[in-house]
């Protein structure tokens, strides 16, 4: 009986939490379409999410591409088709690894900081102060962040993909001796526009997902330093899990 009750309570709290998250998203989307937009805050947010994540993205992108070059080359030699290294690396990056890894890295780098920042604003009553001035915290805090996510994620993903393809080139062409023309030429043949569109759609949806989860967790952070640290952890974990789950669903629908 006790187990049943605990289970029931758990299901109810999760449902309520999920419902609140949906309402939060709905409200935020509503305010996105209600001008005026706070441009300056949005640009500051793009800097915060995007520009400051650049180094991480460059590093992880390069090494992901290099690892791919190595591993895919090894696999392809088994079928005697090393010539397809270029498209294999490019397709894995553009369709899958670019958007996903980039989103995971940005979650760790910027998402956690976002949650902490908004959480601190909550516990130090800065959000209440905005409300008390009759300024809507959604407009001032959440909308610029979500829009910044929608802009920054695709750009970062594109950079990740490019650097990754170059990393694969370094390993495949310079190290393992595939012809330069083969690497890029086959890529042009096999990568079509739909693959790129799919990558962009994914990264857009991850941008929304990550900023939504991270803003929500910060906005409803509990009390004290402990509340903020718990919110931050939850935001990173939930974002990461949702990225992978969502990636599977989008992938299976778009394929």
């Amino acid at each position, binding site marked *: 009986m006790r187990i049943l009750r605990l289970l029931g309570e758990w299901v109810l709290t999760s449902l309520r939490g999920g419902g609140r998250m949906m309402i939060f998203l709905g409200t935020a989307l509503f305010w996105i379409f209600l001008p005026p937009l706070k441009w300056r805050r949005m640009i500051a947010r793009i800097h915060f999410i995007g520009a400051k994540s650049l180094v991480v993205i460059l590093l992880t992108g390069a090494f992901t591409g290099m690892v791919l070059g190595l591993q895919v080359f090894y696999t392809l030699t088994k079928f005697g088709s090393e010539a397809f290294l270029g498209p294999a690396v490019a397709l894995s990056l553009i369709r899958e690894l670019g958007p996903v890894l980039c989103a995971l890295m940005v979650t760790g780098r910027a998402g956690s900081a976002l949650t902490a920042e908004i959480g601190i*604003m909550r516990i130090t009553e800065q959000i209440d102060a905005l409300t008390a001035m009759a300024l809507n915290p959604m407009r001032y805090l959440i909308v610029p962040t979500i829009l910044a996510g929608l802009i920054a994620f695709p750009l970062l993903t594109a950079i990740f993909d490019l650097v990754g393809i170059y990393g694969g080139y370094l390993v495949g062409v310079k190290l393992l001796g595939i012809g330069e023309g083969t690497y890029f030429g086959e890529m042009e043949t096999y990568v079509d526009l739909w693959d790129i569109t799919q990558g962009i759609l994914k990264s857009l949806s991850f941008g929304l997902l990550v900023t939504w989860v991270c803003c929500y967790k910060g906005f409803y952070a509990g009390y004290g330093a402990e509340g903020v640290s718990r919110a931050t952890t939850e935001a990173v974990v939930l974002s990461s899990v949702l990225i992978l789950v969502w990636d599977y669903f989008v992938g299976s629908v778009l394929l």
Partner: protein
Amino acid sequence: MSGPMVEIRNVHKSFGGQQVLRGVDLQVTQGEILVIIGRSGGGKSVLLKHLMGLLKPDQGEIMISGQEISRLRGRELDQLRERFGVVFQGGALFDSLTVFENVAFPLREKTRLPEEAIREKALTLLKQVGLADMGHKYPAEVSGGMRKRVALARALTMEPEVVLFDEPTTGLDPIMVNAIHRLILDLHRRVGFTAILVSHEIPEIFGIADRVAMLHRGAVVEAGTPEAIQASTNPVVRQFITGDPEGPIQPD
């Protein structure tokens, strides 16, 4: 104007089983300075948040110049909030903005004044609280007392009709306490706002209050002029203003 500026009627509020307010009744007339005293954790800040519509009562109502605020929505609620200025207990300064920007923030966001006028106004306010040369610093870089004064200046930028002060002097040195009290009195005389001030500064507040109300166990046990409160025969009030550890209020 007819009737009280703020009227709190039988307000109840609990947080997850903990009853904080259990039937608060209080009236504030226009232009007066009402000081709320009461034990730490007694629900004074919670009461102030109800006046801003930041919290909603479980039961009872709050009328502000005749309007019941928990029924207001959107634009109407905003208009009401614009008539208020608040000094939050912790200051609630925006820590991504400098001291100067904090004070100028309401002007920048809520008015179409030219930059010149905004600068001038914000500087005047900072001067009044004695922080004219601190404008470029961030809230984290100034002392706790300075933060309180910045919060005070920010609350007054929009020339509100009602100002809520949540412990504007707690943690300041005695000279600063009196300076802030004098500043509040001074501004009150000049601007004529209605002030609701939560404070632990006994006996200093008796010098600035028009009326004092004591909140205890979630209700107002006594409200009256400073003289009446000081002469009160209610044992709870007596014990509180003398700070006697023995009596009906038990330290927990």
